[in-house]
């Protein structure tokens, strides 16, 4: 039981990170109907920018951890958002009215560009940082000595995710920008006729998705204590899977899918084998899609007559 509880905590934390990335996939799919394969690499870029900002702040002699975290968070979000904007501008927008596969191929190309650019610029080796959020709580200690740990960094990841999710839900459901985004999602032509600048709204979607991916990158850096140029690939595929599992296009679905993938992976590693954790996650995706083709929370697409 204690072991189960510990794995539940680990799974939720991992799932939160996947969920944050998955939102970027699902938002872009919702508004432009394409899979942004470069999104996983945007997450990786976010991790690197967080690392670089962190090192700069430390070398400047800053020691107050909350200040460092806040600055790193804001800088990583801002610069990664700029990456998101630029990617859309140069790789997707010129192909928007091209054939359906063109932006997807362009996205795969963009993914390679970002991966290799990071490898060239930052080197191929794993970049570690010393753990600087330490400590935690012992929730329970059983008779045979097994301890359920809840570390501060885990608490931070989950709280940050909840806060961002709340903010983001508010943005989409209550603000002008959110209304415009939903309008563009349903009928771009009509939205344009009502005066909505569709291109700008799509850019903002990429900016927000990238900013959330940057937060995920920072969380990953803090949680695992390292980044490398290839981490965007696997995390991206997992988050994409999460978005599909939850029902692509659905925001709560992306978060739910992220948590599901995180939990499946963690429990499989804990009870069966670590080597086959990805097999387990993807097998469950296949089973879910066979019985629920639109994912857990997705709505079937209604053909427009």
């Amino acid at each position, binding site marked *: 039981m204690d072991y189960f509880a510990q794995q539940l905590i680990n799974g939720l934390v991992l799932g939160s990170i996947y969920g944050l990335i998955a939102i970027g996939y699902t938002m872009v799919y919702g508004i432009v109907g394409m899979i942004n394969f470069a999104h996983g690499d945007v997450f990786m870029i976010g991790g690197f920018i967080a690392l670089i900002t962190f090192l700069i702040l430390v070398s400047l002699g800053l020691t107050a951890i909350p200040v460092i975290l806040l600055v790193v968070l804001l800088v990583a979000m801002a610069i990664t958002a700029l990456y998101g904007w630029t990617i859309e501008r140069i790789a997707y927008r010129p192909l928007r009215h091209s054939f359906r596969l063109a932006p997807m191929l362009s996205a795969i190309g963009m993914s390679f560009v970002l991966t290799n650019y990071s490898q060239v610029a930052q080197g191929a080796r794993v970049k570690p940082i010393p753990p600087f959020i330490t400590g935690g709580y012992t929730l329970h200690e059983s008779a045979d000595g097994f301890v359920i740990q809840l570390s501060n960094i885990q608490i931070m990841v989950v709280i940050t995710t909840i806060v961002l999710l709340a903010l983001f839900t508010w943005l989409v459901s209550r603000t*002008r920008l959110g209304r415009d985004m939903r309008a563009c999602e349903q009928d771009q032509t*009509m939205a344009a006729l009502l*005066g909505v*600048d569709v291109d700008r709204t799509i850019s903002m979607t990429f900016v927000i998705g990238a900013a959330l991916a940057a937060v995920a990158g920072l969380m990953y850096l803090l949680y695992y204590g390292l980044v490398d140029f290839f981490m965007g690939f696997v995390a991206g595929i997992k988050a994409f899977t999460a978005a599909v599992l939850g029902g692509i296009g659905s925001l709560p679905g992306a978060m739910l899918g992220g948590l599901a993938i995180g939990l499946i992976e963690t429990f499989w590693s804990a009870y069966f084998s670590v080597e086959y954790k990805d097999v387990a996650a993807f097998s469950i995706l296949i089973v879910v899609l066979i019985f629920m083709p639109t994912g857990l929370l997705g709505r079937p697409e209604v053909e427009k007559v």
Partner: protein
Amino acid sequence: MSGDTILNVERLTMRFGGIVAVQDLSFAAERKKITALIGPNGAGKTTVFNCITGFYKPSGGAIRLSHDDGRTIALEKLNDFRIAKQAKVARTFQNIRLFPGMTALENLMVAQHNALMRASGLTFLGLIGAPGYRDAEKRAIDLATDWLRRVNLLDRADDAAGNFAYGDQRRLEIARAMCTEPALLCLDEPAAGLNARESAALSELLLSIRKELGTSILLIEHDMSVVMEISDHIVVMDHGVKIAQGSPQEVRDDPKVIAAYLGTDEDEAAAVMESGS
């Protein structure tokens, strides 16, 4: 004439490959008046609308919109969101194009994008809730509420637009177009699929828009009872060219119109024209 003309279409031509959909069409719509564009199916009416609202780039000719303040805008050079933003032209479609997953109120709020955008200082002020933006948002909600009241949908403000009955969706679509505060409102078959009572209510709504708000209206319509009742001026098209124009009375009595509009079947022509009187 040119002093109170809002829309001037001059020698408009639209070709698709070898097909000429609209040829050398010239007509004018007067300010604060209702102008109807009628003609048999395939006459090119919707093509004219698509040229006016930036969907098609005309193969030739000019479309001039003159605003109250004397500005003249070349509509054939604008497209996309600029039609609503700069030219202040709004349109509806033959098939309803509401945002079905959004509430009625939200549909009307999207239409006020430009007013809100100006107040929100490129999004940022809006997100932090600056006072100027809050006022603008309050005004936007007031305007939307006012329109929901006019089209009798106030009690359903928070229902998803996709769940509305057909006739309600039609009225909501007009309300949404009006929320962009247009100078020229283009309606593509607003009475299509409405029953007699709903058509009468539509006529009343359009007349009140013209009278109370002074919005100029250009409409395509097949329902002759609506056209004859509300139009100040009618332009008749067939096979991409204008075959007649004038007041409802003049057009109704024009033999060319009767012949062209309904083929050569005189009985059918007479029957439909009767229904308009």
